[in-house]
């Protein structure tokens, strides 16, 4: 049963990831990306990482994807304004990523022999909270400073350009 759920979620994730790359309209690409993110959240639930599944849905499907869609609608992008690469570059892209897939498969074969133990209940909020606010307290605070710096940076970038546009 769990294995069937895994195969279904994997199929959905890979299929919609391919559609992200190959759909012509940028809005459709971002919508397929949302489907991919939900499939990955399903994988997190299968892996007993409930906290990360919820955070993943909130952060990616809730925040980042809304940001993407807002920017696409703000810039008024559609199929007509979509730039096209020539065929040689596309063939080269497919060829080189196929080579990368080959290299990764070759190097990751047998990596599973490193894993012996099997899972427990570490993905729950209680355990993760204790690790996050105990051992990883300093990185947690640094992450908050990073988010503050990103926010200030984004406001500065937007504001400066607004002033230039008005001149």
């Amino acid at each position, binding site marked *: 049963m769990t294995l069937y759920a895994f195969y279904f979620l994997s199929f959905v994730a*890979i299929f919609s990831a391919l559609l992200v790359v190959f759909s012509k309209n*940028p809005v459709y690409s971002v919508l397929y990306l949302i489907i991919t993110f939900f499939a990955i959240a399903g994988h997190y639930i299968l892996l007993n990482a409930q906290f990360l599944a919820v955070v993943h849905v909130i952060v990616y499907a809730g925040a980042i994807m809304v940001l993407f869609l807002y920017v696409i609608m703000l*810039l008024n992008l559609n199929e007509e304004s979509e730039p096209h690469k020539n065929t040689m570059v596309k063939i080269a892209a497919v060829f080189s990523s196929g080579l990368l897939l080959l290299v990764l498969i070759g190097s990751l074969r047998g990596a599973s022999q490193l894993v012996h133990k099997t899972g427990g209940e570490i993905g729950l909020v209680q355990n993760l909270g204790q690790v996050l606010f105990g051992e990883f307290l300093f990185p947690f605070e640094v992450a908050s400073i990073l988010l503050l710096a990103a926010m200030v940076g984004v406001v500065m970038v937007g504001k400066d350009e607004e002033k230039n546009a008005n001149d």
Partner: protein
Amino acid sequence: MIPIENYIWLSTALFTIGVLGVLFRRNAIIVFACIELMLNAVNLLMVAFSSYLNDATGQVFVFFIMAVAAAEVAVGLAILVMMYRNTKSVDIDILNRLKG
């Protein structure tokens, strides 16, 4: 229990699709989306190993990667909007004016 190989191959496939998207598309927003796809492939593998090894550190790392990805997307899309205002395009191939 699902074998860990399945998660390794799934993450490999998702990461490669992300690389393919970055190389294949010229729309800068889709390139950003594919970078998110690559980050998610790595996150998925890290959660899988964390869960199989019964070690919460991997999941905490995934939490930090999500925070950094959110900051990265916000700054990147702001730069993209600024670039669009200057050039009226999101084509990454016309951004070669930094060449000496």
